[in-house]
């Protein structure tokens, strides 16, 4: 009974500490989603793949989204013609490399500032590298879901705004796209409608946008709050009910601890704004490298995120993303375990 009480107190304390950050993250991402036009951002992105990947990874500072919000934004970036390295850099880094997540990580790991800096640095480096690797894929459409692929080179935003993006001359009009895969892609009515709908967000009158912001906030609180409750419950139960010897033997090995925390990160799927509090409950028993592995890998790939990623990428591309992110995280945090801490 006492054990149960401890677990419950732990569970509540995680929530009490995490919910303010969740609320802040949700409000911020909502505000920016509805009040900032990312098309202008794309226009200033460099063409160089490495630089693009790096800058893409840093867009998170403008769009502080956690890993549920980043997928829709990355998707829009791609559809509006952002180069692949930019979009993928953003996709992987934005959930971590943003002010709110840095703040919450700082709150949790005040005593170990190196965790905060390394989390930031490693996430940025890994996202940039993967974004760069993906620039080798000349025709991105073959790894995207058809729904995204067929609108990628769309001329629509350009023709409407008269603007800055390069236009493939093939794609300015007509209903059929002949991709390099030789497969014609049809721009069907529903997709066009969807894009029309999307376009109107930025131009809607203020009361409507505020209403959208409210709806968005409530929905994200509901979804992410639900995941947070489950994640906190898992953390509390693991910490209180699993025998300490067992956790210590797992958590002190330089390799096993990293693998365990990466697995946990993928399974628990906790939002990046608050995952540092989850990791904190393992700080006393797990190596610093493994905590970093959790904090770096979790926001990039997790079970919940895979569902979301499937709205952009085909399975094959997700496997690549997963393998690259997992390897890079594993190697870098193992290095930290063995040579730094």
């Amino acid at each position: 009974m006492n054990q149960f009480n401890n677990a419950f107190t732990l569970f509540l304390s995680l929530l009490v500490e995490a919910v303010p950050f969740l609320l802040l993250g949700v409000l911020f991402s909502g505000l920016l989603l509805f009040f900032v036009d990312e098309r202008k951002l794309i226009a200033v992105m460099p063409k160089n793949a490495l630089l693009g990947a790096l800058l893409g990874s840093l867009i998170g500072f403008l769009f502080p989204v956690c890993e549920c919000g980043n997928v829709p934004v990355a998707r829009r970036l791609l559809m509006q013609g952002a180069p692949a390295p930019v979009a993928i850099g953003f996709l992987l880094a934005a959930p971590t490399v943003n002010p709110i997540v840095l703040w919450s990580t700082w709150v949790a790991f005040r005593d170990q500032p190196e965790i905060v800096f390394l989390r930031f640095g490693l996430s940025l480096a890994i996202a940039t590298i993967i974004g760069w690797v993906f620039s080798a894929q000349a025709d991105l459409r073959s790894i995207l879901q058809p729904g995204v692929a067929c609108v990628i080179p769309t001329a629509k935003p350009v023709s409407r705004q008269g603007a800055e993006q390069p236009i493939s001359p093939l794609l300015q009009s007509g209903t059929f796209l002949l991709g390099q895969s030789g497969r014609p892609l049809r721009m069907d009515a529903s997709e066009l409608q969807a894009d029309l709908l999307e376009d109107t967000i930025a131009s809607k009158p203020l009361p409507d946008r505020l209403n959208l912001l409210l709806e968005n906030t409530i929905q994200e609180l509901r979804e992410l709050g639900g995941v947070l409750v489950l994640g906190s419950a898992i953390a509390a139960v693991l910490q209180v009910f699993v025998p300490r010897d067992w956790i210590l033997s797992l958590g002190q090995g330089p390799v096993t601890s990293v693998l365990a925390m990466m697995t946990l990160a993928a399974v628990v799927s906790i939002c990046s704004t608050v995952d540092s509090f989850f990791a904190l409950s393992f700080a006393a028993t797990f190596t610093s490298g493994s905590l970093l592995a959790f904090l770096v890998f979790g926001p990039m790939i997790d079970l919940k995120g895979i569902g979301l990623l499937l709205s952009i990428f085909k399975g094959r591309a997700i496997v690549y993303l997963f393998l690259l992110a997992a390897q890079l995280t594993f190697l870098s945090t193992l290095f930290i375990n063995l040579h730094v801490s």
Partner: protein
Amino acid sequence: MSANLPSRRRRRDDKRSPRSFSFLPWLDVLAISSWGVLFLKYWMTGKLYLLIHPNYMGLTIVAGVGLLVIAAIKVLVLLNARRRSVPLDPGSQHLTLFPPGWGNMLLLVTAVLGLVVEPRAFASQAAIHRGITDSLVSTRIQHQSFTASTRPEDRTLIDWIRTLNVYPEPDAYTDQKVKVQGFVVHAPELPKNYILISRFIITCCAADVYPVGLPVKLAQSRDAYKPDSWLEIQGHMQTENLAGRRQLTIQSTSLQPIPEPKNPYDY
């Protein structure tokens, strides 16, 4: 956005489906406001001290108010019929993770549990489970706020632990006066006439509390001092060979029961 997702992954509570006339929006209001109420209740009753570091209480309080404000605005919107025709469901930007209503219910049930079940400070059992040491946990950086000029009898238990971390030789402290407060732990590895006087240290929230403690030598069996009871101990320091290693130990001269402090943790 949702229109160009393949239909198998389309949101389950699709646009303008049951939401506009079902009770689900009200469940939203209930779930969100219940968390606001919970946070403010913890603040009013001082229970926040048991859960998080005082530095972050402001955040929780503001969040509690913020949640109530969001819930209130949602109520106004729901009551205002003109606003009901939301032109575009922003939710279509996300895939839902739960079936409709589940996320809400999860939040609501948790908040109600939190309102009903009182959180309690960690006690000796948790301390033993987490392993009490006379050193700060190895994965932690030591505090910088340590001052060496304190008179020995003015040091709190935490000050002693920090001092010991800087200079771990127990003989260096022999015969220094001690006056510390903490709770009693009956450590299984210690002989019957020893207790551990312990405190939990918190840096962020209860997830990272970790116990520290010093052994206390008693004149009699420890059964007179129940685990989890709070004591103020006076005495002087000496070195003892306990559990196979030399440890700084308090030779007690007076043990005074004290009430559990409002804020049982230390920082």
